């Protein structure tokens, strides 16, 4: 079960800060399974008992049956002269071998009687072997069962919690970090819950029990026999410590190799275009060689451990047999205990059992620590309080008309650092509000307030007169459509991606929405049309195509309020035009808030807000704002200035002036 030792060492190690609290909480998850755990405990104890009792019984086979016989066969076969008490003579000889407690040694028993007696004892041993196997099997199964269930419960809880957390949490914490808590930490937990913990407990119990049993038979002989046990622990700790350190270095090197691979394969076309193959190959050789060397070093420690323990095992074998033999030969009991051949056999059996648990305890111990630290990190995540929760009396939002009011709205992500200050906006049903302004002015915050991704710190956001905090967030969001700059697609079919906001939509509805969004054209050209499964995050589609899908997705939900972050990223002119047409259709008749990057959007907007440092500094239509000659005017004119520098200006206000003879389309 432990073939992949290096894997165990390769686990990243961490230390928990609040071990006892974390353990108590972890225990809470096991609480439902108390009965199963009790059963496991019973099995662990009985299984360990059987492991302890078997070497003892084996020794009894020797001491009760074989030892006396061996002695008798040497002496008893002699023709005893008259008057010689064979029983007494062989008895005294046999005393040197006997430590028999299983039965009254019968020196005069015939071979058949001995065989029968030994057969009965061996039947007991066989029975114990069989029961012990069954017990081990059931115990392993129960523990894995509990471990997997606890892990599942924990994972489900984390996932649900992630969805309760407000978006503010995600702006502060990398998705990758949460992901790693989830995958790495639960992986370690799985290992520990599954078999690690139980193995360590059972191993420790076994060692203690064996040491106790040995001591109860003969303290001095045990002490001598156990000399290698601490050495085993020390060796294991040292080697595994070194191995972990070395693996930490090796992980870095493999990271470099992967980065090299990733880059050179992803950009293979550039590499070939610039004939850089040979240089790259050479460069890869270097990082690859560094990785090899780091790994060889790390493996050196790992591979040294097992032979060391094995060697120590042989050393204790020599000590047990040698010292035991010398004591027997001395003919004196050792401090009141008779050392018998059977006892030597028993002790050999015991010392040979140390290897595995010692290794398991040392190796898994660190992993258990990492798992506790992992659990702690998971609990930290679970302790993160969701900022946005529906009030208990929150009402389901009735059908939205689209009247949106922001009244003296303040917002902050971190206390004391206002992002919005006293915003007042009123959008009548069907109006389009364009928001412009420099990065960091608070544009995104405004649109985050409407679907209650974030709450105001002062003031209120009213939709059709309802404060958004008084209505159920779900009901509110169901009636809003949101198109973000970066389109997120799921690795699912195109059909299901469009259907995302309205799971019950028919295929026809989806296709109709795609047609309205001008996405139908490229979708039907995909290998499997609407059934094409999109790769990771929609890879394989261009940015523009992904935006069209996002638009189709929103069209399908037919929202009353639309929130749109116009994309700045590159699309070719034709797609750009298609997106524009699709958006126009989408905006039509809905209250819309748009973070605008296109002049056409701004022009068509009913209101333009110029945001600066969290405040609305200018508000009005495009023409009104131009007439103000303020920020918006500057922004607008700066475009014009660069245009002039570029192609020679003819003084028109329009930033770009294509050849007038060929532009009937644009107006």
């Amino acid at each position, binding site marked *: 079960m432990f073939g992949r030792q290096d894997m165990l060492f390769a686990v990243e190690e961490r230390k928990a800060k609040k071990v006892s609290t974390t353990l108590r909480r972890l225990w809470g998850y096991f609480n439902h399974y108390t009965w199963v755990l009790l059963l496991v405990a019973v099995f662990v104890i009985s299984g360990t008992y059987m492991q302890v009792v078997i070497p003892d019984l084996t020794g009894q086979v020797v001491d009760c049956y074989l030892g006396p016989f061996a002695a008798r066969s040497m002496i008893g076969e002699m023709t005893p002269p008259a008057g010689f008490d064979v029983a007494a003579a062989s008895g005294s000889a046999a005393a040197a071998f006997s430590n028999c407690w299983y039965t009254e040694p019968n020196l005069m028993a015939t071979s058949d009687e001995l065989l029968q007696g030994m057969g009965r004892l061996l039947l007991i041993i066989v029975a114990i072997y069989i029961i012990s196997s069954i017990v081990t099997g059931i115990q392993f199964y129960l523990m894995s069962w509990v471990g997997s269930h606890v892990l599942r419960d924990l994972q489900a809880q984390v996932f649900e919690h992630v969805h309760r957390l407000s978006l503010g949490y995600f702006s502060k914490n990398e998705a990758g970090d949460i992901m790693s808590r989830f995958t790495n930490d639960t992986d370690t937990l799985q290992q520990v819950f599954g078999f690690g913990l139980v193995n360590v407990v059972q191993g420790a119990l076994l060692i203690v029990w064996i040491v106790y049993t040995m001591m109860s038979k003969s303290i001095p002989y045990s002490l001598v026999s156990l000399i290698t046990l601490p050495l085993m622990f020390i060796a294991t700790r040292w080697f595994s410590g070194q191995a972990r350190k070395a693996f930490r270095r090796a992980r870095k090197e493999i990271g470099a190799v992967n980065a090299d691979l990733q880059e050179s394969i992803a950009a*293979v076309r550039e590499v070939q275009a610039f004939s850089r193959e040979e240089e790259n190959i050479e460069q890869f050789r270097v990082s690859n060689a560094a990785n090899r060397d780091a790994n060889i070093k790390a493996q050196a420690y790992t591979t040294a451990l097992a032979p060391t323990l094995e060697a120590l095992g042989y050393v204790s074998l020599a000590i047990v047999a040698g010292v035991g033999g010398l004591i027997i030969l001395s003919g004196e009991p050792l401090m009141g205990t008779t050392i018998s051949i059977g006892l030597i056999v028993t002790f050999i059996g015991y010392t040979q059992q140390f290897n595995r648990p010692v290794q398991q305890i040392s190796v898994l111990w660190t992993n258990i620590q990492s798992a506790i630290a992992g659990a702690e990190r998971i609990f930290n995540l679970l302790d993160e309080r969701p900022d946005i929760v529906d009030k208990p009396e929150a009402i389901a939002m009735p059908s939205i008309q689209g009247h949106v009011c922001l009244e003296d709205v303040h917002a902050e992500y971190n206390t004391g650092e206002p992002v919005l200050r006293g915003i007042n906006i009123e959008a009548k049903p069907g109006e389009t509000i364009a928001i412009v302004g420099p990065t960091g002015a608070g544009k995104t915050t405004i649109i985050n307030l409407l679907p209650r991704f974030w709450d105001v710190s002062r003031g209120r956001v009213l939709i059709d007169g309802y404060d958004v905090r008084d209505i159920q967030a779900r009901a509110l969001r169901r009636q809003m459509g949101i198109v973000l700059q970066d389109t997120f697609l799921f690795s699912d079919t195109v059909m299901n991606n469009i259907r995302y906001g309205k799971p019950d939509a028919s295929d026809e509805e989806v296709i109709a929405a795609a047609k309205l969004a001008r996405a139908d054209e490229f979708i039907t050209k995909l290998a499997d049309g609407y059934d094409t499964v999109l790769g990771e995050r929609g890879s394989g589609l261009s940015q523009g195509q992904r935006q069209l899908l996002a638009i189709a997705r929103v069209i399908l939900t037919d929202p009353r309020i639309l929130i749109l972050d116009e994309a700045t990223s590159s699309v070719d002119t034709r797609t750009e035009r298609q997106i524009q047409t699709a958006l126009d259709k989408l905006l039509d008749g809905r209250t819309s808030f748009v973070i*605008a990057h296109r002049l056409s959007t701004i022009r068509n907007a009913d209101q333009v807000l110029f945001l600066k440092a969290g405040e609305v500094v200018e508000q009005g239509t495009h023409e009104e704002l131009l007439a103000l000659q303020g920020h918006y005017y500057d922004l607008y004119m700066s475009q014009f200035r660069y245009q002039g520098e570029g192609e020679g200006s003819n003084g028109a206000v329009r930033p770009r002036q*294509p050849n007038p003879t060929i532009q009937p389309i644009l107006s």
Partner: protein
Amino acid sequence: MQMSSSRPNNRSLSRAIRYLGRYPRVALAAIGALLIAAAAQLSVPQLIQRIIDNIISSATQASILNLPAEFREMAATQLGLDLSGIQAEVDRAPGIIITAGLIVIALAAARGIFAFAENYLAQTLSQNIAFELRNDLFAKIQRLSFSYHDKNQTGQLMIRATDDVERLRLFIGQGLIMALEAFILLTGTMIFLFITNWRLTLVVIPILPLAIGLFFVFGSIAQPLFVEVQKRLSQVNTTLQENLAGIKVVRAFAREPEERGRFRVNIDELLEQRVRIARVFSFLFPFIFMIANLGQAAILYFGGRQIIGGTLTLGEWQKFSLYVVYLFLPLAQLGFIISLMAQASASAERIFEILDARNDVENKPGAVELQTVQGEIEFRDVSFRYFAGADPVLADVSFTAQPGQTVALLGSTGSGKTTIINLIPRFYDVSQGQVLLDGQDVRDVTLESLRRNIGIVLQETTLFSGTIRDNIAFGRPEATDEEVVAAAQAAAAHEFITSFPQGYNTPVGERGSTLSGGQKQRIAIARALLLNPQILILDDSTSSVDLRTEYHIQKALDKLMRGRTSIVIAQRISTVLNADQILVLDKGRIVAQGVHADLLENSAVYAEIYYSQLEEDVTVGDEEQLVLAEELAEV
């Protein structure tokens, strides 16, 4: 990349194992260490037997000495010894036991040292083979033509160079040596057992095939279970990943309950599979241990019988029981070895699939170095299809670009523009016809010399980790700093580069996100300029840049094209207007050819494309532009 359909055969595996031949000395040393380690291991029970038998006989003899004086002599003669002999032997016994004990300790040391040496050498060997395989894979992947990369994704190729190589390495480093060790230990043990007592050995033998059979069964049951658990695990991770990355979308569409449900299904399926594996394990492992233990019990009983029958000594009996452990130890590893081998075999197959892949574009034997290039490019009846039997992407395309001319390619997506530019540097080879450079077929010259004369600027700029300087000098690593700066200046990149604190030494990897699309594009232009190519291939669209940058880029591009033969996928009016030749493509054919004025009059297709594609929407630009405007307003 489709999984190879055939069952993993062991030919690939043995081919991988043959890599061992590259390190013959390490391999031999590993085997030597293994033999010594095994010999030491096999000797230990012999000595233990010696100790125990010695104890028994000495104790018996000692008891003879304790007999009443009148019987001593008689007992001794019956044993064929005289009393002084017995006395001497009893006196010698402790010495023998101590010596045997010390030898065991020495053997333990030898075992420890050589087992370590064996494992360490095996690891070294396997790491070296992984190193070689990875190098070979990397080199092959770097050289494989575009057509191969079109069909294979980066991630898939990555997996082969990492996971598959690692699996193969594990087998070679652990599995192979374990198998060899197991074999030697099994054979050695069997020989010793037979020599000691063949009848008792026969008791153990039937257990062996039983255990081996069980392990095979285990292997075939467990393997698919593990594959399935991996699959379900990655499904769980995908769902989570998507929910984190797309959390806004999930919220916006209020899909949390459905996502929760989806996740719940995922983790329940994973749980189910894990419990299923636990069930198999909890049956199989104890069962196998039980069989091994029953073997021990059988030895105990039948050995005991023989002791009573007088044909076995107690020492031999103990030796047997130690050897039986050796017998089952390798068996316990067998299951592991088998599963390693199955995985390694499949991995080896996937690795060699790449190494054996035919490269569509290679230097032909006797290809010549391309000498000074004038820059005349001719397409002569060129047709191209991605694979035999597919629809042609280009059909009968013929045109000639004179040295220094600019040829603009126009056409809708999929009309064949990209294919034309891909054929010139031989990213693909023509299916029919010829591409000629200065009258020479591009297939007759070496790839390196051909590509060094062609500069390429594409729409999607890929930069590499390393400094900005490294990136500009990408095609000519030996360029001087002056040359790099000159190229950057010509590409209008010098200004923004020097505005970074570290200037040209700014690492691109870290800057990756902060380098804007326009900045990246200008670095790409500088990169092409530095090559000073006679031929230029470019896609003149400027992506995601504000007007000011766009203007700079355009100027840089104009500079770049001057005096070079340029083939341009045209997105811009000015390019088309200035082109010496315009090729209008539709469905892989040239449907019109000429200069702007002529075409506008004579070609309806051109006029349509012209109006629909080249007219750009008026844009306000992006955030950057707004910030810029504010800065300017404050001045």
